[in-house]
Each structure stands twice: as structure tokens, then as C-alpha cells.
């Protein structure tokens, strides 16, 4: 049985071509990757969560409506060439994580549940149940970026540094 799924690479190429853009985006392409086998039981492993989802952290008590409107008006989560790796305390209350910027079609799904893209509450449950050992002190959010070079040379080394510094064994990635 062939698997049916959306061909985003083809669809975006056609979509932008219809708008008069001739050059198509050069998607990341690799033939292989590094691989590190799990070195100890998951119940003893320390787990990191990393996402490119367009959320921000609200102050205690949340954003006011006007603040939220201003944040959502920003329009894009696209990063610059600066280092853009932001910590998210892994014990943060779920409602402090507020989705503000969508760079994709949200007609079907409005990002109302953080656990769909940043499963912070689920991971805490698995730790409480003993399935996972512990969570990194700080999870990470990155801005998405058109530049693969920036991702590889600026953000990725910082992600690795933080993982090592916090003795992380497993990194879970949720690209959005």
C-alpha cells in the first residue's frame, strides 16, 4: 500500500510559481545523518524538546488583548542571521506558551493545544510515570529560517552546546 500524504515540496513550488516567482526554494537534502544509539534505558534518560513552532512565552497572568493583537500582527516567524535559540523552562505552565505566528495553513487546526506541537505536559506525565528519566531544565525554541547555512552554523551548535551542558541523552524535535 502506498502512503498518501501531502507533497509540500511540489505544492509550494507550484503555488509560488503561479504568483510569478520563477526560482523555487532549495529544500534541505541529505543522504544520511549522524546516529547515536540510546546508551541507557529511557527510564534513566534525560530528554530535551526542541521546536520551531511560532510561540512565545507570556508573563504570569498572560498577555493583554492588545499585546496579543500586536504579537499576532508581526506576521512572520522567519529568523535573521542572529543566534535565535530561546529557552523554555520545562516546568513552565502550559498556558504560558502562546502561539502567535503561523507560517503555514491553519485552516484545519488553530494551534490551540500546545501539546500538539510542543508536548510539554505529555513529557512531564511520562517522567512522572517513570517511562522517561528526567527532562532538560530548559527546552528550546528556534526561529525557522530560510537559510540552511544559518541553521547549521549558528543555531545548531548552540542547541548542541545546551544539550551537552545539561547532560541530555535524547532530543525530540518538533518542526512546525
Amino acid at each position: 500500500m502506498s502512503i498518501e500524504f501531502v507533497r509540500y515540496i511540489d505544492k509550494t513550488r507550484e503555488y509560488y510559481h503561479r504568483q510569478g516567482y520563477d526560482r523555487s526554494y532549495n529544500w534541505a537534502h541529505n543522504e544520511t545523518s549522524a546516529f547515536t544509539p540510546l546508551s541507557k534505558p529511557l527510564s534513566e534518560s534525560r530528554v530535551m524538546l526542541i521546536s520551531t513552532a511560532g510561540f512565545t512565552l507570556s508573563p504570569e497572568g498572560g498577555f493583554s488583548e492588545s499585546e496579543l493583537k500586536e504579537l499576532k500582527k508581526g506576521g512572520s516567524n522567519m529568523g535573521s542571521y542572529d543566534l535565535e535559540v530561546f529557552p523554555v523552562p520545562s516546568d513552565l505552565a502550559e498556558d504560558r506558551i502562546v502561539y502567535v505566528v503561523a507560517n503555514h495553513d491553519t485552516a484545519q487546526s488553530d494551534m490551540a493545544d500546545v501539546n500538539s506541537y510542543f508536548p510539554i505536559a505529555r513529557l512531564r506525565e511520562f517522567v512522572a510515570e517513570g517511562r522517561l528519566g528526567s527532562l532538560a531544565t530548559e527546552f528550546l525554541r528556534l526561529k525557522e529560517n530560510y537559510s540552511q547555512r544559518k541553521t547549521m552554523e549558528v543555531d545548531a551548535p548552540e542547541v548542541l552546546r545546551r544539550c551537552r551542558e545539561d547532560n541530555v541523552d535524547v532530543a525530540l524535535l518538533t518542526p512546525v
Partner: protein
Amino acid sequence: MTFSNARDISTSAFNPRLVFTNYPLGNPAGRPFDVVNQREILETAFQMLERATEAGEIVDTPHQWSENHDWMRLIFSDEQPFLSEDAERDRRERLEKNRTAKGPESK
């Protein structure tokens, strides 16, 4: 370990370990407010972590977003604009300008 809703993009980039769920973008870790579903997807990943011995394994979870596949057809279609109202208006204006400039033959 990567969770993805875009199988073609993720497999092009290549991931050491990949769990693909055929949901609209933005739900790599499961269906909103469906704790059982979210736990299943995470558990699928945990089992792969325990099992995998080489890079490149992909698990396609069996979950379906809806009974039909209309949501897949509508993505990036003119029927279902995905940008903000302002950005969509700009997009349509630019599209119209391009069409006018090129003439009806290239429409």
C-alpha cells in the same frame, strides 16, 4: 528523534529517526486535546529510540485526521488562503498584476 507532518520535506532533509503522522502542519506531536492520541505518538517514538540501530528509520503512524482527505487537497489552494487577510490581499493583487502583465494567453 523528529516528529513530522511533512513527510517529503523531512525525508529530503534526512533524520536519524522520524515519526510521521499524516495530520495538517502544526500537529507533529498529535491531535489537539486528544491525550490518548498524543501519548500514542510519543510512545511510538520511545519504542523506536529503544529499537533503532542505524540512521534513517521512519515510522508512519496509522492515524487519520478526518474521514476524507479534503484537507490535503485544500492545502495551498486558492479555495483556502493560508495567509493573514492583509497578506492574502497583497498576494491576490500581485497575482492579478502578473496575469495582466503577461496577458490572457499565459493565464
